[in-house]
């Protein structure tokens, strides 16, 4: 079974179960809301995919002459173009593209070995997942804790410093931050590896199942590989996670402060409950609700950040794949990557909205 399929199952089955549970137990309004949301997600993906398809077709470059370089003759270029179906009418190509998206086959790459895009993505997508999941967790931990802390110490030095932190970290160009970390921890101190996903030698001993190396190492009980993967993860995760944490600090802080001014908190305060308990016990819990929405919105920033992080750290994920293939004018690969990104964004925001509608009774269905 392909790694992509395994990952889809790992994520898909629990989500489907959850959705089914919610659907069965939920109110009529909730059911209708979830259905509408799902129905609305599809045109969103369709719009983006179509946009990308046509944008790429106006590109002046040509994948075939790009791959052949100065040594290609016009006849060779034409024959290969015909072979790859690039000489068909645009509408035929579009139809083929839509069909390949529906069947999730994506077609074959236009450059190099013309490998199936699904195969290439089976190698790239798990790498991106392995980077963005710990990065989001780090961002969330730092963000939520920092935000709550800042709110607790409102208008004091700590609040001030945390706010400065959140703004400064948000203003850092992520690629520059990555480079600085790389130079300091990788080159100067030599503590951490600066590129790749796993040590080359240890990598040969790792049997890949999902292509998420940490998971594969755990599943096969390959401890050296597991630790090697973790080491390689540290710098990219720090880069992406810390940059993201800025927004979370800011949002959590604002939300906790807003909640602290709610009447029930005032009531609780009047009952003599300690401020600490108020903040971490009551306010934070409610403030977390909008933060959930924020997670959905941050997916965009997360993925864009992943593109730059992967480029800086030679991380063989979807982002570096995209950048690589854009310059090779590999339409099929680029449109597939962007469509997959679109699906990812749409699915996560769907999931977030569903969860949000469950936990926040104020949402109108």
């Amino acid at each position: 079974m392909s790694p992509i399929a395994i990952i889809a199952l790992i994520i898909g089955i629990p989500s489907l179960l959850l959705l089914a549970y919610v659907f069965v137990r939920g109110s009529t309004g909730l059911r209708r809301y979830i259905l509408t949301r799902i129905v609305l997600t599809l045109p969103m993906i369709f719009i983006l995919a179509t946009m990308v398809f046509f944008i790429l077709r106006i590109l002046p470059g040509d994948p075939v002459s790009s791959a052949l370089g100065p040594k290609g003759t016009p006849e060779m270029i034409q024959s290969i173009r015909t072979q790859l179906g690039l000489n068909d009418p645009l509408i035929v190509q579009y139809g083929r593209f839509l069909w390949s998206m529906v069947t999730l086959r994506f077609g074959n790459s236009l450059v190099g070995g013309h490998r199936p895009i699904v195969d290439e993505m089976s190698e790239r997508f798990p790498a991106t997942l392995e980077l963005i999941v710990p990065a989001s967790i780090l961002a969330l931990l730092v963000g939520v804790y920092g935000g709550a802390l800042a709110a607790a110490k409102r208008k004091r030095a700590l609040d001030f410093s945390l706010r400065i932190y959140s703004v400064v970290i948000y203003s850092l160009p992520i690629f520059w931050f990555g480079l600085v970390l790389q130079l300091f921890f990788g080159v100067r101190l030599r503590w951490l590896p600066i590129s790749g996903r796993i040590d080359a030698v240890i990598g040969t001993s790792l049997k890949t199942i999902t292509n998420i190396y940490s998971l594969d190492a755990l599943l096969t009980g390959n401890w050296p590989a597991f630790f090697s993967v973790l080491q390689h993860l540290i710098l990219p995760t720090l880069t992406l996670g810390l940059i993201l944490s800025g927004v979370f600090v800011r949002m959590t802080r604002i939300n906790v402060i807003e909640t602290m001014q709610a009447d029930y908190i005032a009531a609780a305060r009047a009952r003599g409950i300690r401020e600490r308990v108020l903040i971490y016990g009551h306010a934070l819990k409610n403030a977390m609700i909008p933060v959930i929405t924020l997670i959905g919105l941050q997916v965009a920033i997360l993925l864009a950040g992943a593109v730059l992080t992967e480029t800086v750290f030679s991380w063989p994920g979807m982002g570096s794949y995209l950048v690589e293939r854009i310059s090779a004018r590999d339409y099929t690969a680029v449109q597939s990557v962007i469509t997959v990104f679109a699906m990812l964004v749409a699915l996560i925001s769907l999931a977030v909205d569903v969860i949000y509608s469950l936990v926040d009774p104020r949402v109108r269905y």
Partner: protein
Amino acid sequence: MKHQKWFVLASVVLVASVLLGACGPAPTPTAAPTQAPATQAPAATQAPAAAPTAAATTAASNPDTIIIGTTDKVASLDSADAYAIRDWEVLYNISEGLIRWVPGTTNLEPGLATDLGTISPDGLTYTFTLKDGIKFGDGTPLTATVYAAQLNRLLTIGPKCPNDVADSLAVPYVQSITAPDDKTIVFKLKSKIAFFPQILAGAPYVASDPNIFKADACNLFPTAPIYGVGPWYVSQYNPDEQMVFEPNPYYTGDMKPQVKQVIVRFFSDPNTMALAVQSGEIDVAWRLLSPDQLTQLKNVSSLKIGTINGGRIQFLVLNHTMKPFDDPNVDKAIASAIDRNAIADTVYGGQVSPLYSQVPPGFLGASQSFDTMYSAPNLDQAKKYLEASGYSATNPLKIEMWYPPEHYGASTAAWMQVIKTQLEATGEIQVTLQAQEWSTYVPALTGGKAYGAGVLGWFFDYPDPSNYLDPFVYNRGEGTNVTIPATGSDTGTPINDKAKQLVALLQQADTETDQTKRAELYKQAQDIYADLVVTVPIFFSAEHVVYQNYISGMSSIASPDTLNIGPNILFNYSVLSKKSQ
């Protein structure tokens, strides 16, 4: 409702915490079980508490494995298709041809054949006899019949393959390949070609496994293991990550592997690769480190840098049918105003050398024609040429120059900027620089219709001067338009008498087998080439291999300092050995 809400929230928290347990608290480097004693970095033994990671030491501490870093990507592993240096390197390591280059040189020696072959008096027939006991990595023996069939596959399968190497390196030269008996292979050529043995030594002619590379289809990425008759076989291949080589158990030749495993690791950019070789993550960095990284690595004491005087050249292409470059005075003015030394030193820190002919030094008949003719930089002379065509400070020559921003390294923009400054120093030229992505750039430049002037780089397919001159003169000449294609002609119609003379000289040189006479013909050709300013050669660069000081090549054969990589920049992994630490 209330109940539900908390159930969901709890499950979210649960999932998050499980993930957290798996990925969150990344252990500090010290917690890593460095399976082998850290031996490379002295810091490791002094301060075990701050020991470098396993990653920083494994490359050094594993005596049986050598890790080679590269920024090249594998594009094809089918010898009937592959047309890139990285692909050829893989093919040479897993297989072998009838004749081969002596490692470290461009001289030829017998490979699978018993000798360098018998050539018929008319120079059209080459006959080779196979050595005994040649077997593929899976044990299948190689017979002349099988070999000839695979070579015929090369001649016929080309159009089905994306890179179609045969179109350039087989079909134009070879009429037929036959095997009269189980030991003999006979090549019949279409015409007498002076440099055919050099072509025959090339990767398209290595023995390929008929079980993997079938007659009817191109197989760019066979599933590992991939066998040939060479010293190694590919045991694992993860595209974009690494390719693992292990010794071929059936190999009987003289280039036996000295280590148990070679891993080629793919990097997406040279900078990361430079950092990796510096931190000891990889043993060898081979292609392509840019001059910028070399300047940095030069001062690292644990590293050695081998310099291979290679044939990589960069030059300006001028389109001789487009205004204003159809005016010979304009072309000559440009050739006179460029200061190649300044480019070599300011942009590349002296890591590249000025080039004064399209044929780089070291090749047969290479001259310094552009230097003798224009003694650039010579601004007075440049002005004279410009003024002869009516240009002046008030009526300057306005030109656009194109370049690809990434393809030849990011320094291209820098040296184009320097050339612009130099040309504008005449006071009578105004230059506009235009960057264009490689894929758009190449057809626009070499198609010969869109760009008047642009940058191109070149590296030979076979080590011979003809490979540096013919492509820029014959058939539109990669956008130089010195000849215009005419139907049924291999060379096209020359645009003027000088071009006609040049074409005639080159054709004569292609069939001349006397090396001294050939060299003389090429000398004359280069003078006319410079007079026509077909292209403006700018600089040539050496290739560099950077390796840890505990890695060494074979001292018994040529150029051990460069790990026995010769001017044809082919790296034979069998020469590598690793000193135990």
